[in-house]
């Protein structure tokens, strides 16, 4: 097997692993048991989705995915902070 073939195979394997990781996070998001567990699952989902986009960038050789990954990372931060704030006080902006 050539080195490039191995790289292609490795990236597909990495994407499968990241997909499984997203499944685990989605399971935690869906089952809870409490609201903070769901938010933790959502946060993990964001980070993993960001990494998945980076691997897509390697696979297609395009740097466009980088920007999408950056946006997902920042959106994930803002949304998790807002949700945690909501849990603590019952409102997002005091």
């Amino acid at each position, binding site marked *: 097997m050539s080195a490039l073939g191995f790289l292609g195979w490795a990236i597909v394997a990495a994407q499968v692993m990241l997909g499984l990781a997203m499944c685990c996070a989605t399971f935690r998001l869906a089952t809870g048991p409490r609201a903070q567990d769901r938010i*933790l699952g959502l946060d993990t989902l964001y980070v993993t989705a960001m990494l998945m986009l980076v691997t897509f960038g390697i696979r297609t050789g395009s740097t466009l995915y980088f920007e999408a990954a950056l946006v997902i990372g920042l959106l994930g931060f803002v949304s998790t902070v807002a949700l945690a704030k909501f849990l603590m006080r019952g409102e997002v902006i005091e």
Partner: protein
Amino acid sequence: MTALGDLPAWAAFLVAFCVLLGAAVTLIGSIGLLRLSNFYARVHAPTLGATLGMVSILLGSAFYFTMLEGRPVVHEILIAVFVTLTTPVTLMLLARAALYRDRTEGSTEVPASEVVEDLIPPGQERPKERMP
């Protein structure tokens, strides 16, 4: 579908190793999210993916594009910096929110209020009803 460019063999193996390592670490972290028993133990799990997993995959990506385009492509550093600064903040906020909720419900599994005094500022009313 795959458009992998021309790379020397050692570079391809290095990128493959970085990406596989990062994905495996992230997967272990997410499995921890499933296997660990209560919320406070689960908070530790996503940090695996957000530290070693993230850095390893981004290193692989930066190295790949640097070799591919023949010039330094290091804008992955931006994602690394943002994630390193933001993930601890979200996890701390979330853990504090969970602690606050458990304490207002009078749970015995978290440290009592004399240890964590300033979670409820004076003059603020405690919520009475338990939320799901």
